């Protein structure tokens, strides 16, 4: 952004501490009257240097660190990291573990969408929606808690399997929670559809067309809201997603309302996936038999090589590029987060809109600053 301002213009800084932002980032907007002429996003307020830390941790220690990349999608971050190592070392994951992973990742997706959606509604002043979604999110969190033992950062996946089996009565718990959640999601949809103020602030705002979105490298719900059915679970199936019946939720409008609608639909699809998994899950070992995986193995060496593995995060395409040199630590890990390109699209999207729409558009991307900064 050009820092020079004309007499009728001024630069407004939003952030890094701003109540309507999910994490610290700064948006410098150049205004003429109430219209945004130009804007710029500044990042790095919570840059932790995870890539450097991962180079100095053993493979097993790395799982704990990748949890903290994006705290709302800890499970999918682990899946991407563990998947890299499994591809390099050629580890086959037993089918039961794969099903447990899918269940946990979809639960994680539901809780992430619930928080993102509710938080977004509170950005627009619709705070009661945040109360509703957090109330229902706590039920999902206790389901995750009952399996992994942690609410936010789980460290649940292991190379070749998962840490624990599902507890007794998990299926009944899921059935009970999903019974309530289905009604709740319908209720949210109804609330969003009938609320005039909400509609006035979302319908037709921040429109992203399919061509532009592809050009800008967007993935996840903001891309699917433009009508592009790009979903890593379908396009490049990992785990047992090939055997499961689900559809990719898309909308055609590409505006803010469509993005929220995609998230609502995805929660329904995720519930559908989890129920199928619970019906189909086979019994068997959690770790491949006759291997040291799952037993105490403090030193683990991975064959030299390079691999790129990507999974579908709640926010889009999450990828890890790993370079291994044959030692017990990765040589280089690159984290490709989904919000990184999505947040870059703010300056072109915000050009020409009014100040009041900044929060509406920026919030609808469901940004996770921690993952952008890493």
């Amino acid at each position: 952004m050009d820092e020079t301002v004309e007499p009728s213009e001024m630069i407004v800084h939003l952030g890094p501490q701003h109540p309507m932002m999910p994490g610290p980032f700064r948006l410098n907007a150049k205004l003429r009257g109430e219209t945004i002429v130009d804007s710029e996003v500044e990042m790095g307020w919570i840059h932790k240097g995870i890539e450097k830390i991962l180079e100095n941790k053993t493979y097993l220690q790395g799982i704990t660190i990748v949890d903290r990349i994006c705290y709302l999608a800890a499970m999918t971050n682990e899946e991407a990291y563990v998947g890299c190592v499994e591809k390099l070392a050629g580890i086959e994951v037993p089918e039961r573990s794969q099903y447990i992973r899918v269940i946990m990742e979809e639960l994680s997706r539901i809780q992430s969408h619930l928080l993102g959606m509710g938080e977004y509604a509170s950005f627009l002043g619709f705070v009661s929606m945040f109360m509703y979604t957090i109330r229902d999110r706590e039920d999902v969190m206790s389901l995750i808690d009952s399996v992994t033992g942690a609410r936010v950062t789980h460290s649940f996946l292991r190379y070749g399997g998962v840490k624990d089996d599902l507890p007794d009565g998990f299926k009944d718990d899921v059935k009970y929670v999903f019974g309530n959640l289905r009604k709740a999601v319908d209720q949210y949809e109804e609330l969003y559809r009938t609320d005039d103020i909400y509609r006035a602030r979302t319908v037709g705002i921040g429109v992203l067309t399919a061509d532009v979105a592809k050009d800008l490298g967007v993935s996840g719900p903001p891309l699917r809201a433009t009508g592009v059915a790009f979903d890593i679970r379908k396009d490049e199936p990992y785990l047992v997603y090939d055997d499961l019946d689900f559809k990719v939720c898309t909308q055609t409008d590409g505006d803010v309302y469509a993005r929220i609608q995609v998230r609502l639909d995805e929660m329904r699809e995720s519930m559908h996936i989890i129920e199928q998994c619970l019906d189909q899950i086979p019994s068997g070992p959690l770790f491949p038999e006759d291997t040291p995986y799952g037993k105490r193995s403090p030193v683990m060496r991975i064959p030299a090589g390079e691999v790129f593995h990507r999974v579908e995060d709640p926010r889009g395409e999450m990828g890890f590029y790993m370079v291994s040199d044959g030692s017990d630590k990765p040589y280089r890990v690159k984290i490709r987060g989904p919000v990184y390109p999505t947040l870059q699209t703010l300056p072109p999207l915000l050009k020409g809109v009014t100040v009041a729409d900044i929060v509406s558009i920026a919030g609808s991307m469901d940004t996770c600053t921690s993952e952008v900064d890493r």
Partner: protein
Amino acid sequence: MDEIEQTNAEQDAVLDVGYTDVPGTMLTDSNAIADFLKKTKVQDVLNWGRKNSLWFMVNAMGCCGVELLATGMAHYDTDRFGIIPRNSPRHADVLIISGYVTKKYLPALKRVWDQMPAPKWVICFGDCAISGGPFYESYSTHQNVDDIFPVDVFVPGCPPRCEALIQGFVELQKKIDAKKDKGTDY
């Protein structure tokens, strides 16, 4: 960093002007009144009021920020203790450092702290704010935050549960009640 030094200098300049040149006036500062009140029962009443309305600043900085949001909302409902999330630092009494303080973010956090009106308290929420947590050896984070802010309560965990934060607030209330907190004098 420069901005904070500049504001400090401006404040000092204002204090230096004083009222010495106005005839018939006596120079005093608010500390004299506060020091006198501390010896009386009025301070107990003040502390009772303060401890029951700890409005905290919503400043989600990391993983712990998610638990911070969840604590303030419907399920854990801290409103019943008078603990209310506030979005503006000018309304808040408690700054919760809920994550890794980086070298880039520290000036901004100091500025938020300066904007809060006294009496004000700091809670270190999570391992990152206490010691650096999993990122203690990183090149970009700032360790030992308690050197910079007068921290009253440390809540350990990575991230701590919502119940732990509520417990942290209860400990802070006890400290205020016993007049052992660092924040009131600040």
